[in-house]
């Protein structure tokens, strides 16, 4: 029997980092920047949060920790780290007009390197005496769910059993969707992504929109890394544990055809694909689970192909995606 009540919460917890990543990347791509550095940004977002709370936990004993600081410090560090990554990408691609693919890949190499390096060397570098990075006290604040969730049976388990970052992800996705579709700022941002020259002629500050969208996008994506370590992984950092979720987030952008509100359900669906093998009886044959893990990528590929075949205008990627803009080259 397929146990839906235990399946959905696990799919959601897998899906939330993807939702953060894809919402951030959608905003970025809407401004015409294809940021392939998102996987790196998410690692940096995660590790900066870890570093922040590591120092806080070292300085303050667990009993006297302040809930506001315990949550606030990692979040601030995480946001700052991913903002710096976003700024680096923006500076190279927008101001210096570097190739976006190469910059993005370099950012991913760098970011994953930073994450694994500090994750693996933080204890050595600070000469502390703990055996591993396990921020359980901080994690408890992050994964605290509503107190009455447990008493509401299946409803509580499916809808109310998550830490606050999970709800924040949904709120951010809805807000991003609203801004993109219904506000003037969103309209101008989309104009920048479709045709920067036209937007420029209409008096829109292309550079500012691109910078802002890319940096905010990075910060949102970085929170995905933070959610993963603090809530999903219970505050334990292990190298490469985050895996290829960053690339999966980029896949989600295509899968949802650049719509953050669709991404809420789609990311949970992808999260479900990720753990589906646990719920499908495959006997003792462990190999099949590797094939199940392929499903999200195959599905994305099929969507990508169908979208390009149908050529519906509202389903296409932003027209200037991946191209630098130089005013004097029009």
């Amino acid at each position, binding site marked *: 029997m397929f146990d839906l009540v235990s399946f959905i919460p696990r799919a959601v917890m897998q899906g939330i980092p993807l939702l953060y990543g894809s919402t951030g990347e959608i905003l970025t791509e809407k401004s015409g920047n294809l940021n392939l550095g998102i996987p790196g940004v998410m690692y940096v977002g995660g590790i900066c949060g870890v570093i922040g709370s590591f120092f806080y936990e070292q300085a303050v004993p667990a009993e006297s920790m302040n809930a506001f600081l315990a949550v606030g410090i990692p979040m601030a560090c995480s946001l700052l780290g991913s903002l710096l990554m976003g700024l680096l990408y923006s500076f190279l691609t927008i101001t210096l007009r570097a190739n976006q693919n190469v910059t993005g890949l370099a950012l991913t190499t760098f970011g994953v390197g930073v994450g694994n390096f500090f994750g693996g060397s933080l204890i050595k570098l600070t000469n502390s005496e703990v055996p591993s990075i396990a921020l359980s006290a901080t994690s408890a604040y992050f994964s605290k769910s509503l107190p009455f969730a447990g008493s509401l049976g299946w409803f509580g388990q499916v809808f109310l059993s998550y830490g606050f970052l999970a709800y924040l992800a949904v709120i951010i996705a809805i807000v991003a969707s609203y801004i993109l579709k219904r506000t003037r700022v969103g309209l101008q941002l989309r104009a920048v992504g479709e045709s920067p020259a036209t937007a420029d002629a209409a008096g829109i500050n292309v550079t500012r929109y691109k910078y802002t969208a890319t940096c905010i996008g990075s910060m949102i994506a970085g929170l995905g890394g933070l959610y993963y370590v603090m809530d999903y992984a219970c505050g334990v950092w292990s190298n490469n544990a985050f895996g290829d979720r960053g690339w999966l987030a980029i896949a989600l952008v295509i899968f949802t055809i650049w719509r953050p509100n669709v991404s809420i359900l789609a990311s949970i669906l992808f999260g479900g694909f990720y753990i589906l093998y646990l719920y499908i009886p495959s006997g003792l044959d462990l190999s099949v689970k590797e094939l199940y893990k392929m499903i999200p990528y195959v599905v994305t590929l099929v969507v990508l192909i169908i979208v390009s075949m149908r050529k519906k205008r509202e389903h296409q990627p932003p027209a200037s995606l991946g191209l630098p803009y130089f005013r*004097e080259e029009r």
Partner: protein
Amino acid sequence: MRNLVKQIHISKRTELPWYKAWAIRGVAILLALVACALVTMLLTGENPISIYITIFEGAFGTARRTWITAQDLAILLGISLAVTPAFKMRFWNIGAEGQVLIGGLATAACMICLADTLSNGMVILCMILASVLAGALWGFLPAFFKAKWNTNETLFTLMMNYIATQLAAYYIIVWEVPKGSGKIGIINQSTEVGWLPQIGNQYLLSIVVVVILTGFMYLYLSRSKHGYEIAVVGESQRTASYAGIKVDRVIIRTMVLSGAICGLMGLLLVGSINHTLTTTVVDNRGFTAVMVSWMAKFNPIVMVFTSLLLVVLSRGASEISSTFGLNHSFADILTGIIIFFIIGSEFFITYRINLRKSVEKEA
């Protein structure tokens, strides 16, 4: 601040003489090395000179280390050569990772499944054919959809990477030895069936193959009709089709070639170097290759030096990490820094920055 921004005027340069362009790149690399030394100094407390001595020791300290550095260089260079023709055509293939892995998977399949039925020579022949065909198929699919329906190739090839990874993961469990270990182990360890022959020592075969490949790719891109067509398609697809070049065919042909060479690298990795298959056998070199090729401006000869720079740095960085008990991802940080500097320096090669003097008059 606003005033300053207004005073800076950026314009495109006309062709910069090659020696000036390379001087700018040289300065960028020097600055990057200084930055790398600074970062290392902050983390380890060593002085920069001894850091670079450690890096050099790590890459060339003993004969064995030098050979391994050369072998790493060969593989990275080979993959970079493979992605280059597609890039020259402005086809953003970031799927080299998957194309190499699928070639390696095909190689391993031949080594494991044919070892009992065919002679050693036949097995090796099958390995070569299978790896090249598998890589070519992985290159053909995105090219076909790009040519027919203009499907975004960056995202397509990215997805193909993970499909290859999961396929490899699946077969690794199917073939695992011993059962339950999740690893294949050394394939045909006792019989050595399907191990590519050694020439001189165990490292030389890959190096020789890649040296030949470098020469071939240089001639192919700069002297052949195909290479010319690739360059025209890369400059402007419209011009190419006016000139009677069949753009679809060039795209598919070039990507099949790219994929096939990647497959060949997979053959070397599995058949000659590792004699086993893991999902991480390519070790992100498919992505690094994109940067190597781009930094060298798609010139195969220059690529030798850009890949040498990255390989020496990464082997040196692992030496530093071992010496100071730090994590081995240190190499990735240094690689990132170097690439950021080189990417940034391109701006100063392509554009000229003029400072306007009389702002008030203009306003």
